[in-house]
């Protein structure tokens, strides 16, 4: 920003080397809008070019140095001034001096660690971005390029089902079962509710998915609950011995992987809430945490064998064996 028309200013543009081939994903911004950003994974190299274009032809641009940074930071909304940077890399592009004409600088951040997934929530934001800066005496010229990072997991080795008997003494006893405790974002929750004792007049039953975002530590912990989904699984009055099936497809809902104590700053956890409602609108509920994880879209060849073994271990169905033999054929 210059008040007078003399002096020089410049425009910065950051362009990634693989902009043509790299996948873009939609990510929510703080005001709820959705935008597309380049998608990166942990360990990937971030490389590109910084184009500095001088606005006023013929004039020189004096500067105190040009640099580019790769930053991963957590921003708590109630504490906006403090950005907690967990990744901070910098590359100097130009020593202090003068620029006579527009110039392009190459940069490369090799095998950058990106330990957490990008997240925009109700009270906290975790983001990664490139920031190119031309330092000047009075005011710097800056440009940011935001990217999105996804954290991937493979099928967990241990994925026990959740099975529990709950109720109110002498009034209502149910046994609920969910087929897994860890679900990937495009998974299906398969379960059942078995009625052992029904002495109240139930009208219907639903299963809700609740997202709980926790920010702050110690006495200043704040939980923000959001009901992501409400899915009716039974309409009408059950009796003893009845089994109600559950089949809930997760792909239709906007969810993130479970995030536990990210950099000791925040958590995002998901709960299944089973709710029974009686004739007088009284609600009886049981909450159970589930772990959500993100599955990679492309299963690389060296991984497919592992993935097939892991899936056979907990599914044990005929189709897994077929996958296992198929994977072996590919590796051979």
């Amino acid at each position: 920003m210059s008040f007078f028309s003399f002096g020089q200013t410049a425009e910065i543009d950051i362009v990634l080397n693989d902009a043509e081939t790299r996948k873009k994903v939609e990510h929510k911004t703080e005001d709820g809008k959705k935008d597309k950003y380049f998608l990166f994974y942990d360990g990937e190299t971030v490389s590109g070019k910084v184009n500095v274009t001088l606005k006023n032809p013929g004039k020189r641009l004096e500067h105190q140095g040009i640099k580019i940074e790769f930053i991963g930071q957590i921003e708590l909304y109630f504490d906006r001034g403090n950005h907690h940077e967990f990744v901070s890399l910098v590359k100097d592009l130009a020593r202090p001096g003068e620029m006579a004409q527009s110039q392009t600088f190459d940069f490369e951040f090799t095998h950058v660690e990106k330990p957490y997934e990008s997240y925009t929530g109700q009270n906290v934001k975790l983001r990664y971005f490139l920031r190119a800066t031309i330092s000047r005496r009075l005011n710097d010229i800056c440009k940011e390029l935001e990217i999105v990072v996804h954290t991937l997991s493979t099928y967990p080795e241990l994925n026990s089902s959740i099975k529990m008997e709950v109720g109110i003494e002498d009034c209502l006893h149910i046994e609920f079962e969910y087929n897994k405790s860890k679900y990937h974002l495009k998974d299906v929750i398969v379960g059942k509710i078995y009625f052992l004792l029904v002495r109240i007049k139930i009208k219907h039953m639903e299963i809700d998915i609740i997202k709980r975002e926790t920010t702050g530590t110690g006495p200043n912990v704040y939980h923000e609950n959001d009901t992501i989904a409400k899915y009716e699984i039974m309409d009408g009055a059950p009796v003893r011995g009845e089994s109600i099936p559950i089949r809930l497809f997760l792909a239709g809902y906007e969810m993130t992987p479970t995030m536990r104590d990210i950099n000791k700053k925040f958590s995002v956890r998901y709960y299944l809430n089973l709710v029974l409602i009686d004739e007088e609108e009284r609600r009886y509920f049981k909450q159970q945490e589930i772990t959500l994880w993100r599955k990679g879209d492309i299963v690389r060849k060296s991984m497919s064998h592992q993935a097939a073994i892991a899936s056979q271990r907990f599914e044990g169905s005929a189709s897994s064996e077929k996958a296992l033999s198929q994977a072996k054929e590919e590796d051979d």
Partner: protein
Amino acid sequence: MSEATVADTRRLNSKPQDLTDAYGPPSNFLEIDVFDPQTIGVGRNRFTTYEVRMKTNLPIFKLKESCVRRRYSDFEWLKNELERDSKIVVPPLPGKALKRQLPFRGDEGIFEESFIEERRAGLEQFINRIAGHPLAQNERCLHMFLQDESIDRNYIPGKVRQ
């Protein structure tokens, strides 16, 4: 090779239901009727009683069928007892209708047929809502209200279940 498996969405195995459970009477049978309003007494000392008839198969109630006569102030007593002793949110009673008890009305006041019917319906809704509440079912006052011949206002409040 793309996905190793398509998600398995087959139902989980469940025990087949016993036929007597499936077709027998449900374990949650509870019906309370408030009916047959009778106005007793003369002049200023008149009051209306209602028959409160209960049919149930819930084991917590000692009698599977009971029939008692109660007046509006008995319902008020029950509401107060529950508000004091139990943690439940007690539903509202139909109004006290104090205006109707003032003199120089053109109609029968609280003994007006339409008003009694309105009140009867409200009391029936009230008692059904309460009696079906698992926590209210623990309170001795509810059992006394529904199944004892008369309400002993000097009773010792307490719980029925452990």
